[in-house]
């Protein structure tokens, strides 16, 4: 086994230039975009990867890509995948980066060992399994980079979607948009309570116009927020309840009787103003 893999390494290093040309040709034909910048970048990545694989195979003599000898190659593939996630490549395009090297390599092996079919078969099989592993690794790191992007976006969404605004002296509004889960409720609750401390508000309007569905869990989260605000000495009004949501709440048997509820934010604001001791007067024009 050791002999065969190191021979593959020799072949790669010996024919690096020609392999690279063949590989690049098939790579470029597979990806749709054809700008000069992408091509030079591709060429750089490919030649670095090819020489790295060659030397690693020759030095390590093992095709086990989880071993420490392959650390550098794994690192390079991880970087390339992360880079492609940012540039918006699909997972197939990313995986093809590695898989398309198989074709030129196999044809080289064929011409090199045409006189020895038995060695050729073992050699091709070893090559296949190595590049399959490398390809799968590429896809996995592509996936990981994707997940990181998603997680970062979730975090950003969490921060973006919980503004607490002051409508009037003593009146706060919390327009909720999107589904309420436990993590978001926590953030919402914290920012609302903090704002109550900062502004000294005595009434908070929680507007759920932007909440698509209210199930028992969401209702429970809402009630928790209301209870926490009450402990801080602020009353809560829940507004923006759409007809369907009112029906759902009753069908689910959620008890919202201890909370003031209003259909629209405007109604809730009027109640809040009354409580705060302010009135709005319409001027004659």
């Amino acid at each position: 086994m050791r002999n065969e893999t190191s021979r593959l390494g020799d072949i790669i290093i010996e024919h690096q230039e020609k392999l690279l040309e063949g590989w690049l040709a098939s790579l470029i034909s597979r990806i749709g975009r054809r700008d000069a910048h992408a091509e030079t970048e591709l060429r750089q990545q490919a030649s670095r990867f090819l020489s790295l694989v060659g030397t690693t195979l020759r030095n390590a003599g093992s095709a086990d890509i989880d071993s420490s000898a392959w650390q550098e190659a794994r690192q390079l593939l991880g970087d390339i995948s992360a880079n492609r996630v940012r540039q918006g490549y699909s997972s197939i395009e990313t995986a093809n980066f590695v898989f398309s090297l198989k074709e030129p390599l196999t044809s080289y092996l064929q011409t090199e060992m045409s006189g020895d079919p038995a060695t050729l078969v073992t050699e091709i099989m070893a090559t296949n399994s190595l590049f399959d592993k490398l390809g799968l690794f590429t896809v996995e790191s592509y996936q990981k980079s994707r997940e990181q992007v998603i997680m970062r976006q979730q975090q950003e969404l969490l921060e973006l979607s919980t503004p607490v605004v002051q409508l009037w002296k003593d009146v706060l509004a919390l327009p909720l948009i999107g589904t309420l889960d436990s993590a978001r409720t926590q953030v919402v609750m914290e920012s609302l309570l903090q704002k109550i401390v900062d502004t000294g508000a005595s009434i908070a309007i929680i507007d759920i116009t932007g909440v698509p569905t209210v199930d028992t869990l969401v209702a429970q989260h809402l009630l928790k927020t209301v209870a926490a605000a009450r402990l801080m000495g602020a009353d809560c009004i829940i507004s923006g309840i759409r007809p369907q949501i009112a029906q759902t709440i009753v069908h689910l048997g959620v008890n919202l009787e201890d909370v003031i509820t209003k259909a629209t934010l405007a109604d809730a604001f009027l109640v809040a103003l009354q409580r705060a001791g302010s009135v709005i007067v319409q001027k004659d024009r």
Partner: protein
Amino acid sequence: MERIPILKMGQLLLVTIQVDMHDRLAMTLQDDLTTRIVKDRAKGVLIDISALDLVDSFIGRMINNIAAMAKILDADTVLVGMQPAVAITLVELGLTLEGVKTALNVERGMTMLKLGSFS
């Protein structure tokens, strides 16, 4: 022995909890407070917990008990100055202190009690 001071302000009693509560301290506070409500003919009790940044179910129950005792002695209790983190903890513990009035700070709490006693 450690005691929690009870200050008299007109018809109101002001209790500021600044140390960690433990069983004995809580019992002493209940004793002292009920005695003072009767002796001073207090109409309202303000419990200021703005210095507390850590609560457990024990403190929650104690506050509930004090409010219930004061109610029997015809005094209203207002809990003031709760920290956001404390409020979240109590709600997560399921202690929403339904029977206790709350206010953001001592000033608001006092206004609340005065309005209540005049009406």
